[in-house]
């Protein structure tokens, strides 16, 4: 049932795709702000340079947590593309993120401590909606396995429009885009410094960046599932969704954690749950 080839393809291709997406993102963002922007390959240059730097840490265990972080991000992404159980994929992702948070806590530094706390807030803000998305996909396709969901002929998006909107909301959080870039962000912030990643530099920061690429590819794969009935539409949908995120990133200013948590939960409740409730009701009526 599990496809090893896909997993290996993910392992090799995801950083390339993720890095390119990140490069295009930076270019577009720059253009929106009236700048020329870096070359598309800039993210690769950045990571390459970071990898060459000296390994500076506050405490040795940070290395362990970050290595575990990237390993489990890769494992869960590979499991997703191999066609594994969606809930297990989500739980493995949570595990990976806990390692990132723990890495930040381990350094006992004020800025990364605050970043870690905020990262936790983000996790509890997005996780319910992601689980509800998986549940919604199960309700339509009767399977939690990604390969079976992807192979489904049913247009998931038509059954799950509310869930999809809810997912886009948490997509913003996961991509670390404004207005929800609470714990760390692509832009510098006065009070946070670099939040959860403050105490990471050199090879560790490079690992975090690569893990982020892997993660983004996984999230794009998740968007794909909503449109899996027609791969062409799916690719267009992914591009539109990502462009939308870039636009949101550049048009909104950062909000407080309270609003992030509340809005994420309210959207999960209003869009996700109501959508599922309707499906549930219809399933009951139709049977």
């Amino acid at each position, binding site marked *: 049932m599990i496809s090893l080839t896909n997993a290996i393809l993910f392992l090799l291709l995801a950083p390339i795709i993720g890095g390119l997406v990140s490069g295009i993102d930076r270019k577009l963002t720059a253009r929106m702000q009236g700048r020329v922007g870096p070359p598309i390959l800039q993210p690769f240059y950045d990571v390459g340079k970071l990898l060459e730097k000296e390994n*500076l*840490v506050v405490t040795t*265990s940070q290395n362990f947590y970050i290595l575990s972080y990237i390993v489990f991000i890769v494992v869960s992404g590979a499991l997703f593309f191999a066609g594994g*159980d969606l809930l*297990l994929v989500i739980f493995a992702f949570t595990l990976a993120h806990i390692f990132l948070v723990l890495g930040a806590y381990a*350094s006992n530094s004020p800025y990364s401590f605050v970043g870690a706390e905020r990262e936790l807030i983000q996790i*509890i803000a997005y*996780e319910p909606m992601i*689980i509800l998305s998986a549940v919604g996909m199960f309700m339509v396709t009767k399977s939690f396995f990604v390969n079976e969901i992807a192979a489904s002929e049913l247009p998931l998006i038509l059954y799950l429009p509310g869930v999809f909107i809810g997912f886009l909301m948490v997509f913003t959080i996961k991509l670390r885009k404004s207005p929800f870039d609470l714990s760390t962000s692509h832009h510098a912030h006065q009070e946070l410094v670099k939040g959860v990643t403050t105490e990471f530099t050199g090879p560790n920061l490079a690992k975090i960046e690569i893990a982020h690429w892997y993660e983004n590819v996984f999230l794009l794969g998740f968007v794909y599932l909503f449109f899996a009935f027609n791969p062409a539409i799916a690719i267009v949908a992914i591009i539109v969704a990502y462009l939308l995120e870039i636009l949101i990133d550049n048009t909104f200013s950062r909000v407080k954690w309270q609003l992030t948590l509340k809005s994420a939960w309210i959207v999960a409740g209003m869009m996700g749950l109501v959508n*599922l409730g309707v499906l549930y009701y219809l399933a009951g009526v139709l049977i």
Partner: protein
Amino acid sequence: MIELPFLIIFPAIAAVLLLFIANETLRNAVVKIAALLIGAGTIYAFFTYFQSGLQLFSVPFEPASQIMFVLELFIALYILYVGIQCRRYLAVLLIIIQSALLIYVESVFVMGIHPEFNLFIDQFSLIMAMIIGIIGTLICVYALRYMQTYHAHHPEIKDRRRLFFFMFFVFLSGMFGLVFSNNLLWVFFFWEITTLCSFILIGYSQTKEATNNAFLALEMNLLGGVAFAGALLYLLYVDPSGQFLGIEQLLTSGYAIALVPAVLIGFAGITKAALMPFSSWLVGAMVAPTPVSALLHSSTMVKAGVYVIVRFAPVYTGTMEGLIIGLVGGFTFLLASAIAISQSNAKKVLAYSTIANLGLIVACAGVGTYKLVWAAILLIIFHAIAKSLLFLCVGTVEHRIGSKDIEDMSGLIVRMPKIAVMMFIGIAGMFLAPFGMLISKWAAIEAFIEAQFGLIFVAILAFGGSITVMFWSKWMGKIISVIPSGEKVEDTVKKEKWFVLYLLTALTVIVCLIFPLISSTLIEPFVMSVYGQTARLSQDNIVIMAMMIFLLMLMPFSLLLYRDGVKHVPAYMGGRPTTTDMRFQGSMGITRETALSNYYFEDYFGEKRLLMAGTALCFGLILLAGVLLTGVIL
């Protein structure tokens, strides 16, 4: 069948022995030997019965029931006495009602009735017995050293350790009796024993707070006891020959007869499992010495509550009353998890997490499909192990650093590295993939989707589950923060404690690895025998999770890679001049100490507000169930 009476009676004998032993060395020896024998007895019982399915036994000893009745009256008299002495008239009132019901039952019906089979064993009883016999006894061994230090630290508290260990072993005996009894009159007797034991153990220190909380626990549990006695009365009223007094006979008798007693006993289970609105007794119970909390939370007391509810799960399946019991559990899970975010006292966090998990177990059992019962039993096992480990870790830490506040556990990894790692594993076991509790939550989500009104529960699990991530992770974060200056203080921990802690840590991991085996030898046959079909995780997922566990165990070795070539620098302090022990130059030239504190979100997850909401909600639901039940009875 000798194993069952042995497991019930032997702890009681050990208890009586301990009541008369004042010498400490002798007591240590007796407790250890007794613990060993009980543990061995449980394992022996496991190997004897794990393949045989349900077995019913009649007890050749005729006056057993009469002895129990007399003991019950003595317990009632004792409670009456202390109730009047301490002017707790609610407790007095409840014990009078309960005893009146019981005497009525005994005098009108039971004389001459002997249900054919008083004892039984099946895979579920066996699982419970393993939890009691292994984890319960480990806690007893741990308690030896703990109580020694406890009295050294608290000279003002009267040393009543003879009573303490007496109660501990009576508790184990009562729990064994509870899970092995088929006769509901017997179950009730053991039920009362656990109520009494918890009352005395919670009030052990005899301070005003302890006495108050002990009475709170007593009153709530007596309320459940009254409902239980009501169930007995109803059953004898329906059939005076008493044939439905056997759990097995009752479960096969169909809804018409079983529903009313099942719901009444379910209510008793809710009080004992400390679900909302009765959660306050378990939170109050943390005034007791930590081994008592460990015992109450993991292997006894609250597990008795969920045991009866899971037992009667097949009766609840598909009924409105069952759904309501499930909802009480579900809301308790959600709200208690949320309250745990706002708590900084480690024991209180553990208490609310226990309440939440019991809520989840009851939610599964109340809805009661076969997949959910499977998940519920899995939850019981994993929770017992991880929770006992966590309590004992907190107890050890408390004696060394003099606080059970999570904020004071900052940098525990430096000060008590071994304990910190164990605590870390225990916490991971409570909420992270691929450990036990998460496997059960996952199974529960999948099972709820297909159940009636399951979407409500799926939503509760989605939100409640992520809330759990928050409070556990920030605790983990606290203990693994590497503080620049910390003195190592764990060398004084005694070897008995180490032994228990190591064993529980190992169990936490091992059970995650062998849970497919536990599922296929014990849980699946049990669910199969009750429902005719059973649930299991898919083979692929089991393999993947086993791989994840191995990967997790390998990861710490990566630390070896970083022994050389790593340069250490101080944490970023915004460019302020900072000393090595994290004192920095603040404004106006004042030197300040760096203090990092977790978020607690009092405004959002405050105990008072959420507790009020939970109490109102769950009280309303129970009232609704009561109304429905009255309708059925009439």
